[in-house]
Protein backbone atom coordinates (compact mmCIF):
# COMPACT_ATOMS: atom_id res chain seq x y z
CA UNK A 1 0.00 0.00 0.00
CA UNK A 2 1.01 3.60 -0.53
CA UNK A 3 0.73 6.36 2.01
CA UNK A 4 2.34 9.79 2.39
CA UNK A 5 3.91 11.46 5.40
CA UNK A 6 4.46 15.21 5.22
CA UNK A 7 3.85 14.86 1.49
CA UNK A 8 6.57 12.23 1.07
CA UNK A 9 5.26 9.00 -0.56
CA UNK A 10 6.08 5.70 1.16
CA UNK A 11 5.31 2.13 0.20
CA UNK A 12 4.52 -0.30 3.03
CA UNK A 13 3.12 -3.78 3.67
CA UNK A 14 -0.56 -4.10 4.50
CA UNK A 15 -1.18 -3.94 8.26
CA UNK A 16 1.65 -1.49 8.89
CA UNK A 17 1.28 1.04 11.68
CA UNK A 18 2.61 4.53 12.37
CA UNK A 19 5.81 3.11 13.88
CA UNK A 20 6.47 1.38 10.53
CA UNK A 21 5.79 4.61 8.63
CA UNK A 22 8.23 6.56 10.79
CA UNK A 23 10.87 3.87 10.51
CA UNK A 24 10.53 3.85 6.71
CA UNK A 25 10.70 7.66 6.63
CA UNK A 26 13.74 7.59 8.98
CA UNK A 27 11.98 9.76 11.56
CA UNK A 28 12.59 9.08 15.24
CA UNK A 29 9.29 8.04 16.80
CA UNK A 30 10.11 10.02 19.96
CA UNK A 31 10.62 13.27 18.07
CA UNK A 32 7.16 13.57 16.51
CA UNK A 33 3.43 13.12 16.99
CA UNK A 34 1.41 12.08 13.98
CA UNK A 35 -1.89 13.42 12.68
CA UNK A 36 -4.34 11.95 10.18
CA UNK A 37 -7.11 14.22 8.95
CA UNK A 38 -5.92 16.79 11.48
CA UNK A 39 -6.41 14.38 14.40
CA UNK A 40 -3.60 12.88 16.48
CA UNK A 41 -3.30 9.09 16.26
CA UNK A 42 -1.31 6.66 18.44
CA UNK A 43 1.93 5.31 17.00
CA UNK A 44 0.57 1.74 16.99
CA UNK A 45 -2.49 2.64 14.94
CA UNK A 46 -2.63 0.94 11.54
CA UNK A 47 -2.45 3.05 8.43
CA UNK A 48 -4.51 2.52 5.31
CA UNK A 49 -3.72 2.77 1.65
CA UNK A 50 -3.91 6.40 0.57
CA UNK A 51 -3.50 7.85 4.08
CA UNK A 52 -1.98 11.33 4.20
CA UNK A 53 -0.14 11.75 7.49
CA UNK A 54 1.37 14.86 8.99
CA UNK A 55 4.00 15.09 11.72
CA UNK A 56 3.93 17.51 14.63
CA UNK A 57 7.45 18.20 15.84
CA UNK A 58 7.89 17.65 19.54
CA UNK A 59 11.14 19.54 19.84
CA UNK A 60 10.97 23.31 19.75
CA UNK A 61 12.62 26.41 21.11
CA UNK A 62 16.29 27.00 21.74
Amino acid at each position, binding site marked *: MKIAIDGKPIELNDGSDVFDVLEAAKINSEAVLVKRKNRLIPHDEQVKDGDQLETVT*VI*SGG
Partner: protein
Amino acid sequence: MGKTPRQINKEQNTRATSHACKCGREAIYLRVQEGAHYCGRCLSGQIERNFEKTISKEKMIKKGDVVAVGVSGGKDSMVLLYLMQKLSKKVPIKVVAITIDEGIKGYRDRSIRVVKDFINKTGIEHQTFSYKDEFDISIDDLKDVKHCTYCGVFRRTLLNKAARAVHADKLAVGHNLDDEAQSILMNVMRGDIKRMKNPAKDEKFVERIKPLKNILEKELVIYVIVNSIPYFDGECPNSYNNVRRDAQRMINEFESKYPGTKSQIIRFKRGIISSNQGKISHCIKCGEPASHEICKACELLAGLKQ
Protein backbone atom coordinates in the same frame (compact mmCIF):
# COMPACT_ATOMS: atom_id res chain seq x y z
CA MET B 1 15.88 -1.44 29.96
CA GLY B 2 12.25 -1.82 28.84
CA LYS B 3 11.00 -3.55 25.74
CA THR B 4 11.13 -1.84 22.39
CA PRO B 5 7.86 -0.54 20.91
CA ARG B 6 8.16 -3.21 18.25
CA GLN B 7 8.52 -5.98 20.86
CA ILE B 8 5.47 -4.66 22.71
CA ASN B 9 3.55 -4.60 19.44
CA LYS B 10 4.43 -8.17 18.66
CA GLU B 11 3.76 -9.56 22.13
CA GLN B 12 0.57 -7.67 22.87
CA ASN B 13 -0.59 -7.31 19.28
CA THR B 14 -1.33 -3.64 19.97
CA ARG B 15 -1.41 -2.82 16.26
CA ALA B 16 -5.02 -2.00 15.37
CA THR B 17 -7.11 0.23 13.13
CA SER B 18 -8.02 2.31 16.19
CA HIS B 19 -7.52 2.19 19.94
CA ALA B 20 -9.70 3.16 22.87
CA CYS B 21 -8.71 5.00 26.01
CA LYS B 22 -9.72 3.26 29.25
CA CYS B 23 -12.61 5.76 29.46
CA GLY B 24 -13.96 4.41 26.17
CA ARG B 25 -13.15 7.43 24.01
CA GLU B 26 -10.97 7.06 20.94
CA ALA B 27 -7.28 7.23 21.85
CA ILE B 28 -4.90 9.76 20.35
CA TYR B 29 -1.72 8.67 22.12
CA LEU B 30 0.18 5.53 23.10
CA ARG B 31 2.38 5.85 26.19
CA VAL B 32 4.86 3.22 25.09
CA GLN B 33 6.50 2.45 28.43
CA GLU B 34 3.09 1.51 29.89
CA GLY B 35 1.55 0.15 26.70
CA ALA B 36 -1.47 2.33 27.60
CA HIS B 37 -3.65 4.38 25.26
CA TYR B 38 -5.05 7.81 26.16
CA CYS B 39 -7.66 10.18 24.80
CA GLY B 40 -6.91 13.90 24.97
CA ARG B 41 -9.12 14.49 27.99
CA CYS B 42 -7.65 11.70 30.14
CA LEU B 43 -4.07 12.62 29.22
CA SER B 44 -4.77 16.28 30.07
CA GLY B 45 -6.21 15.27 33.44
CA GLN B 46 -3.17 13.16 34.16
CA ILE B 47 -0.81 16.01 33.24
CA GLU B 48 -2.68 18.39 35.55
CA ARG B 49 -2.53 15.88 38.41
CA ASN B 50 1.18 15.30 37.74
CA PHE B 51 1.80 19.09 37.90
CA GLU B 52 -0.04 19.47 41.22
CA LYS B 53 1.47 16.32 42.71
CA THR B 54 5.03 17.46 41.87
CA ILE B 55 4.33 20.82 43.55
CA SER B 56 2.78 19.34 46.70
CA LYS B 57 5.18 16.39 47.07
CA GLU B 58 8.23 18.65 46.91
CA LYS B 59 6.52 21.51 48.79
CA MET B 60 7.43 23.85 45.93
CA ILE B 61 4.78 26.47 46.71
CA LYS B 62 3.05 27.62 49.87
CA LYS B 63 -0.02 29.78 50.43
CA GLY B 64 0.67 33.47 49.89
CA ASP B 65 3.70 32.92 47.64
CA VAL B 66 4.40 35.25 44.75
CA VAL B 67 5.35 32.90 41.92
CA ALA B 68 7.28 34.35 39.00
CA VAL B 69 6.77 32.21 35.91
CA GLY B 70 9.49 32.43 33.26
CA VAL B 71 7.58 32.58 29.97
CA SER B 72 9.23 32.56 26.55
CA GLY B 73 6.15 31.73 24.47
CA GLY B 74 7.30 28.18 23.79
CA LYS B 75 4.97 25.30 24.62
CA ASP B 76 6.56 24.37 27.95
CA SER B 77 6.41 27.82 29.47
CA MET B 78 2.93 28.48 28.07
CA VAL B 79 1.65 25.25 29.66
CA LEU B 80 3.38 26.22 32.89
CA LEU B 81 1.75 29.66 32.92
CA TYR B 82 -1.66 28.17 32.01
CA LEU B 83 -1.45 25.56 34.80
CA MET B 84 -0.06 28.00 37.36
CA GLN B 85 -2.89 30.41 36.64
CA LYS B 86 -5.37 27.53 37.08
CA LEU B 87 -3.70 26.64 40.36
CA SER B 88 -3.93 30.26 41.55
CA LYS B 89 -7.73 29.92 41.40
CA LYS B 90 -7.57 27.05 43.91
CA VAL B 91 -4.63 28.10 46.09
CA PRO B 92 -4.00 31.69 47.24
CA ILE B 93 -0.82 32.52 45.31
CA LYS B 94 0.06 35.46 43.07
CA VAL B 95 1.35 34.64 39.58
CA VAL B 96 3.61 37.09 37.76
CA ALA B 97 4.85 36.25 34.26
CA ILE B 98 8.39 37.32 33.39
CA THR B 99 9.90 37.20 29.93
CA ILE B 100 13.54 37.51 28.97
CA ASP B 101 14.24 39.27 25.67
CA GLU B 102 17.65 38.09 24.48
CA GLY B 103 17.50 40.30 21.38
CA ILE B 104 17.13 37.66 18.66
CA LYS B 105 15.27 39.29 15.79
CA GLY B 106 12.68 37.18 14.01
CA TYR B 107 12.60 34.72 16.90
CA ARG B 108 12.18 36.23 20.34
CA ASP B 109 10.16 39.21 19.12
CA ARG B 110 7.68 36.77 17.56
CA SER B 111 7.44 34.55 20.65
CA ILE B 112 6.95 37.61 22.88
CA ARG B 113 3.93 38.57 20.75
CA VAL B 114 2.38 35.15 21.53
CA VAL B 115 2.97 35.72 25.26
CA LYS B 116 1.50 39.23 25.16
CA ASP B 117 -1.62 38.10 23.27
CA PHE B 118 -2.20 35.37 25.87
CA ILE B 119 -1.49 37.72 28.77
CA ASN B 120 -3.94 40.30 27.40
CA LYS B 121 -6.71 37.70 27.48
CA THR B 122 -5.92 36.42 30.96
CA GLY B 123 -5.00 39.57 32.86
CA ILE B 124 -1.89 38.04 34.41
CA GLU B 125 0.75 40.58 35.50
CA HIS B 126 3.65 40.50 33.03
CA GLN B 127 7.09 42.12 32.76
CA THR B 128 9.79 41.81 30.11
CA PHE B 129 13.52 42.14 30.89
CA SER B 130 16.08 42.50 28.09
CA TYR B 131 19.77 41.65 27.76
CA LYS B 132 20.19 45.06 26.14
CA ASP B 133 18.96 46.89 29.26
CA GLU B 134 20.76 44.61 31.69
CA PHE B 135 24.05 43.78 29.96
CA ASP B 136 24.13 46.44 27.23
CA ILE B 137 24.39 43.66 24.66
CA SER B 138 21.95 41.63 22.56
CA ILE B 139 22.53 38.11 21.28
CA ASP B 140 22.28 39.46 17.72
CA ASP B 141 25.30 41.69 18.52
CA LEU B 142 27.53 38.67 19.20
CA LYS B 143 29.76 37.59 16.33
CA ASP B 144 32.04 34.55 16.00
CA VAL B 145 31.10 33.05 19.38
CA LYS B 146 28.97 30.15 20.56
CA HIS B 147 25.74 32.05 21.21
CA CYS B 148 24.24 29.37 23.46
CA THR B 149 27.12 29.63 25.95
CA TYR B 150 26.47 33.34 26.49
CA CYS B 151 22.71 33.18 26.18
CA GLY B 152 22.32 30.40 28.75
CA VAL B 153 24.46 32.17 31.35
CA PHE B 154 22.87 35.58 30.80
CA ARG B 155 19.36 34.12 30.90
CA ARG B 156 19.98 32.34 34.20
CA THR B 157 21.37 35.52 35.76
CA LEU B 158 18.65 37.81 34.42
CA LEU B 159 15.80 35.45 35.29
CA ASN B 160 16.98 35.47 38.89
CA LYS B 161 17.26 39.27 38.95
CA ALA B 162 13.86 39.60 37.27
CA ALA B 163 12.28 37.30 39.86
CA ARG B 164 13.78 39.47 42.62
CA ALA B 165 12.53 42.62 40.86
CA VAL B 166 8.93 41.37 40.97
CA HIS B 167 9.40 40.32 44.62
CA ALA B 168 8.89 36.65 43.85
CA ASP B 169 9.22 33.94 46.48
CA LYS B 170 9.62 31.28 43.78
CA LEU B 171 10.78 31.26 40.19
CA ALA B 172 8.95 28.62 38.14
CA VAL B 173 10.55 27.46 34.91
CA GLY B 174 9.12 25.16 32.26
CA HIS B 175 11.75 22.40 32.29
CA ASN B 176 10.15 19.09 31.36
CA LEU B 177 11.32 15.52 31.88
CA ASP B 178 13.22 15.53 28.57
CA ASP B 179 15.08 18.73 29.54
CA GLU B 180 16.03 17.20 32.88
CA ALA B 181 17.35 14.02 31.27
CA GLN B 182 19.36 16.07 28.75
CA SER B 183 20.88 18.24 31.50
CA ILE B 184 21.97 15.17 33.46
CA LEU B 185 23.57 13.57 30.40
CA MET B 186 25.30 16.85 29.50
CA ASN B 187 26.71 17.16 33.02
CA VAL B 188 28.00 13.59 32.82
CA MET B 189 29.62 14.28 29.45
CA ARG B 190 31.27 17.43 30.83
CA GLY B 191 32.33 15.69 34.04
CA ASP B 192 30.51 18.46 35.90
CA ILE B 193 29.79 16.92 39.28
CA LYS B 194 29.00 20.33 40.85
CA ARG B 195 25.81 20.62 38.84
CA MET B 196 24.73 17.13 39.88
CA LYS B 197 24.33 18.40 43.44
CA ASN B 198 21.21 19.95 44.93
CA PRO B 199 21.10 23.66 44.02
CA ALA B 200 22.65 25.87 46.66
CA LYS B 201 20.48 28.19 48.74
CA ASP B 202 21.25 31.87 49.04
CA GLU B 203 19.25 34.97 49.91
CA LYS B 204 19.98 36.40 46.45
CA PHE B 205 18.78 33.27 44.72
CA VAL B 206 15.05 33.13 44.20
CA GLU B 207 14.23 29.47 44.70
CA ARG B 208 13.77 27.88 41.31
CA ILE B 209 10.99 25.33 40.90
CA LYS B 210 10.28 22.98 37.98
CA PRO B 211 6.68 21.76 38.27
CA LEU B 212 6.75 20.12 34.79
CA LYS B 213 9.90 18.11 35.41
CA ASN B 214 8.03 14.80 35.58
CA ILE B 215 6.14 15.28 32.31
CA LEU B 216 7.40 14.12 28.91
CA GLU B 217 7.91 16.83 26.31
CA LYS B 218 5.67 15.09 23.74
CA GLU B 219 2.83 14.92 26.27
CA LEU B 220 3.12 18.69 26.76
CA VAL B 221 2.73 19.11 22.99
CA ILE B 222 -0.45 17.03 23.16
CA TYR B 223 -1.62 19.17 26.10
CA VAL B 224 -1.27 22.44 24.16
CA ILE B 225 -3.05 20.94 21.15
CA VAL B 226 -5.93 19.44 23.16
CA ASN B 227 -6.41 22.58 25.27
CA SER B 228 -5.87 25.05 22.41
CA ILE B 229 -3.11 26.89 24.26
CA PRO B 230 -1.31 29.28 21.90
CA TYR B 231 2.45 28.82 21.61
CA PHE B 232 5.35 29.75 19.41
CA ASP B 233 7.02 26.71 17.83
CA GLY B 234 9.89 28.43 16.05
CA GLU B 235 13.43 27.24 16.58
CA CYS B 236 16.15 29.61 17.77
CA PRO B 237 18.34 30.44 14.72
CA ASN B 238 21.44 29.99 16.88
CA SER B 239 20.62 26.53 18.21
CA TYR B 240 21.64 24.51 15.14
CA ASN B 241 24.77 23.10 16.72
CA ASN B 242 24.54 22.99 20.48
CA VAL B 243 25.32 20.21 22.91
CA ARG B 244 21.74 20.04 24.18
CA ARG B 245 20.43 19.26 20.70
CA ASP B 246 22.93 16.39 20.41
CA ALA B 247 21.99 15.08 23.87
CA GLN B 248 18.32 15.32 22.85
CA ARG B 249 18.87 13.28 19.67
CA MET B 250 20.93 10.69 21.55
CA ILE B 251 18.36 10.25 24.32
CA ASN B 252 15.47 10.08 21.83
CA GLU B 253 17.32 7.33 19.93
CA PHE B 254 17.67 5.36 23.16
CA GLU B 255 14.11 6.07 24.28
CA SER B 256 12.68 4.80 20.99
CA LYS B 257 14.68 1.57 21.34
CA TYR B 258 14.43 1.23 25.12
CA PRO B 259 11.28 2.97 26.40
CA GLY B 260 11.72 4.40 29.88
CA THR B 261 15.33 5.55 29.31
CA LYS B 262 14.50 9.19 30.11
CA SER B 263 12.87 8.30 33.43
CA GLN B 264 15.78 6.02 34.31
CA ILE B 265 18.26 8.87 33.76
CA ILE B 266 16.23 11.04 36.16
CA ARG B 267 16.08 8.21 38.70
CA PHE B 268 19.87 7.84 38.46
CA LYS B 269 20.40 11.49 39.37
CA ARG B 270 17.90 11.43 42.23
CA GLY B 271 19.73 8.46 43.67
CA ILE B 272 23.10 10.14 43.74
CA ILE B 273 22.18 13.66 44.85
CA SER B 274 19.85 12.98 47.74
CA SER B 275 22.20 14.35 50.38
CA ASN B 276 24.53 16.49 48.30
CA GLN B 277 24.02 20.23 48.91
CA GLY B 278 26.01 22.64 46.77
CA LYS B 279 27.87 25.70 48.16
CA ILE B 280 27.53 29.26 46.99
CA SER B 281 29.42 32.56 47.29
CA HIS B 282 28.95 35.97 45.64
CA CYS B 283 30.58 37.47 42.58
CA ILE B 284 33.11 40.15 43.56
CA LYS B 285 32.09 42.26 40.53
CA CYS B 286 28.29 42.26 40.50
CA GLY B 287 27.42 40.66 43.83
CA GLU B 288 25.18 38.01 42.24
CA PRO B 289 25.31 34.42 43.53
CA ALA B 290 28.24 32.53 42.02
CA SER B 291 30.14 29.31 42.47
CA HIS B 292 33.47 31.08 41.81
CA GLU B 293 35.00 34.45 42.78
CA ILE B 294 33.63 36.02 39.56
CA CYS B 295 30.28 34.82 38.19
CA LYS B 296 30.09 33.32 34.72
CA ALA B 297 28.07 36.27 33.32
CA CYS B 298 30.72 38.82 34.41
CA GLU B 299 33.48 36.57 33.09
CA LEU B 300 31.81 36.32 29.67
CA LEU B 301 31.00 40.04 29.55
CA ALA B 302 34.61 40.94 30.39
CA GLY B 303 35.78 38.73 27.54
CA LEU B 304 33.37 40.40 25.10
CA LYS B 305 34.40 43.93 26.10
CA GLN B 306 38.16 43.33 25.82
